């Protein structure tokens, strides 16, 4: 039985794919949305720390599973190649379920700043790096940030942040109140002369969009929301797409390849359905939204006569410039119990150090950290502390409610050698060559991370911590849940993968709509920007698609 031809196939039902599917389907395109995972339910894992997005020692609550998915990780120093599974750090997992990471994320809702789109113009050429400006500006993306904020749902109040980029419309929901440690850190930041403000969140602070308000439990980041107050693509745009009648969602399907004909045009995709059977879905156009790792892998695996190295990869830029965030910060021990169990913990941020730091390229937003859960807390100790025994247990008992941490995502300096490629020798469960991760962060990241960690230390000491230690990020290969950059958008087909619309330079009817497009990754959690890019690419297609190509 052949599948009925459709206008568009969207691959990946996450932060990017959800908005694209919704934009296309509600504008009359017939769409099939593919997702390699299924629907995640809170009850499957509830508040179980050991199978969550925070601690994966007993597996990944939101997929994928280790029986069918693995990758190859190349150690940069030794060149040693290891097979890594989704619950292991080297795999660089995001998630595999409807909504992807937006089901279990901490849900910070950041707009990037105008400088984040113009990193090369702002900081100049950086040796050993591919730092570049985006081909679009903040102003180009602004209307789509607004769409994401209203259609998916964001709480917050920007004017308290003097560094916030200009917006045309306020946020739909009021900000969350600070918890006890948030209040304390707010006051401390004020005393330092900084500009603290409540973190914008893709969570309902009040009932919104037919779903209830958040009740502020501690097991939020890393878990699905038990009351459906967290806003992801799975409970907003994807249901809207499905309700339009134009979108079919096919879950538990693994897409193997984009079929490209001898004229260099995509004709559809090959995939394996829920039962493992090979299938074909033809379409007028294909949108890839599989995350920075899986999108690049799929393009590279899509070989054809005109593209022997993979779709859109004739200049070897697919999979390059893999970025994530070098998290960096400090932890403080307090005499008083500062923990009030008003979750998820992160409530206050500063944007004072995103840009304009002397001697540093970029910077990052700093915020108080989500609550550390009991098992993860066993590993959070001042340097030199015992890692087991009576003293370790004493610390756990005495200090669980006396610790606060502030940290932030340093905007990494991209480099060409940090990449995902494909290992032809290693195949996954379906026989598809797996992704292979290699390279390392740019050495400058260490310096930026050190600078930010110093600010975090200062903040905690000001707040009254009697002991503070830094956890400085950088080094190693990046990626992880904030993975980005592997199908960079740009104006030159020799130094980028897609044009400014997210369309492959070399294949007119293949688009990318996820974090892969991002030239640089901002000093912020990227989810809202990926959603905005999804709306942006979707809108370009809706406005300009003439059936076979974009109107020129």
């Amino acid at each position, binding site marked *: 039985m052949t599948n009925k031809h459709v206008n568009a196939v969207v691959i990946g039902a996450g932060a990017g794919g959800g908005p694209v599917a919704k934009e296309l389907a509600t504008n009359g395109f017939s769409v099939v949305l593919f997702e390699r995972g299924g629907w995640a339910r809170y009850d499957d894992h*509830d*508040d*179980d*720390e*050991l199978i969550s997005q925070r601690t994966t*020692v*007993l*597996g990944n609550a939101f997929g994928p599973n280790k029986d069918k998915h693995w990758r190859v990780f190349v150690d940069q120093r030794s060149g040693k190649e290891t097979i890594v599974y989704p619950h292991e750090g080297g795999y660089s997992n995001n998630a595999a379920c409807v909504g992807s990471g937006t089901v279990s994320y901490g849900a910070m809702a950041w707009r990037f700043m105008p400088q984040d789109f113009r990193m090369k113009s702002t900081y100049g050429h950086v040796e050993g790096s591919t730092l570049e400006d985006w081909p679009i500006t903040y102003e180009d993306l602004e209307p789509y940030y607004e769409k994401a904020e209203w259609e998916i749902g964001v709480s917050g109040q920007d004017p308290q942040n003097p560094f916030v980029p200009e917006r045309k419309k306020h946020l739909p929901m*009021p*900000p*969350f*109140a600070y918890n006890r440690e948030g209040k304390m850190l707010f006051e401390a930041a004020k005393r330092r002369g900084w500009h603290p403000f409540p973190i914008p969140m893709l969570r309902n*602070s*009040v009932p919104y969009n037919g779903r209830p*308000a958040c*009740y*502020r*439990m*501690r*097991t939020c980041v890393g878990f699905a929301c*038990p*009351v459906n107050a967290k806003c992801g693509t799975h409970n907003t745009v994807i249901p809207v797409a499905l309700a339009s009648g134009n979108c079919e969602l096919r879950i538990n399907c693994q897409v193997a390849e984009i079929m490209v004909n001898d004229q260099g045009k995509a004709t559809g995709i090959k995939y394996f359905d829920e039962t493992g059977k090979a299938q074909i879905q033809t379409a007028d156009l294909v949108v890839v939204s599989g995350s920075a790792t899986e999108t690049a892998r799929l393009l590279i695996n899509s070989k054809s006569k005109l593209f022997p190295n993979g779709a859109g990869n004739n200049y070897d830029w697919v999979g390059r410039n893999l970025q994530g965030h070098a998290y960096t910060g400090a932890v403080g021990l307090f005499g008083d119990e500062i923990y009030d*169990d*008003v979750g998820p913990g992160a409530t206050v941020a500063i944007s004072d150090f995103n840009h304009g730091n002397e001697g540093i390229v970029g910077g990052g937003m700093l915020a108080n950290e989500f609550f550390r859960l*009991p*098992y993860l*807390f*066993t590993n959070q100790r001042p340097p030199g502390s015992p*890692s*087991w*025994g*009576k003293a*370790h*247990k*004493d610390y*756990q*008992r005495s200090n*669980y*409610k006396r610790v606060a941490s502030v940290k932030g995502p340093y905007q990494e300096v991209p480099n060409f050698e940090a990449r995902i490629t494909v290992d032809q020798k290693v195949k996954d469960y379906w026989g598809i060559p797996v992704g292979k991760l290699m390279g390392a962060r740019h050495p400058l990241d260490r310096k930026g991370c050190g600078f930010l960690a110093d600010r975090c230390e200062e903040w905690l000491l000001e707040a009254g911590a009697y002991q503070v230690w830094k956890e400085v990020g950088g080094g190693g290969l990046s990626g992880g849940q904030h993975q980005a950059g592997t199908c960079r958008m740009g104006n030159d087909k020799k130094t980028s993968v897609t044009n400014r619309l997210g369309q492959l330079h070399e294949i007119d009817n293949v688009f990318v709509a996820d974090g892969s497009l991002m030239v640089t990754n901002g000093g912020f959690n990227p989810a809202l920007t990926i959603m905005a890019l999804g709306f942006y690419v979707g809108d370009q297609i809706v406005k300009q698609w003439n059936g076979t190509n974009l109107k020129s």
Partner: protein
Amino acid sequence: MNLNRRKFIQSLGLATGSLFLFPACGGPAPSNWRFLTDDEAKLVIAIAEQIIPADQDPGATDAGVVNFIDKQLTGFYNNFQENYRKGLAALQEYCTQKRGAKFEELEFDKQTEVLKLMEKNSIEGEYWKENPASRFFRMLRDHSMQGFYGSPRHGGNKDYVSYKMIRIDYPHVIGQNRYAPRCETLNAYAQ
């Protein structure tokens, strides 16, 4: 009753594969457990109690950490079966030969000494040359912590002992009284 439990598990096919990977010579070693033998379990209990000893609050033994480890060894941790079987044997061999008694029979402080040697890779024994003792120790330490501080659904943290110790309420009761007052706070903030 315990013997029946093992048979029961076998009959369900829950542990198939794992139970037959390491057939002991001359018939299976006695066991009330899923993967561990009774002797291995005694050793694991003693090690876990070193990692999280009982004091004014319950320790690893009370929390059923060994049950967590044994359960995971026939589940998500089945790839660690060989590490456990051989590592535990090597540790016990060291204790009986160099310390004159099984690990669990040594005084508490002597046990601590042995584990510290393992942690520093300073324990003697042929097995440890190829398999660093520090790695084996870290695995036991991490698995014990998981059994003690993780969710009871995995076989450890019996009666939420660790959550009681650090004074956090579990399990959450959805829609409990905290929901309403916090909503009001938010509404007040909004106005």
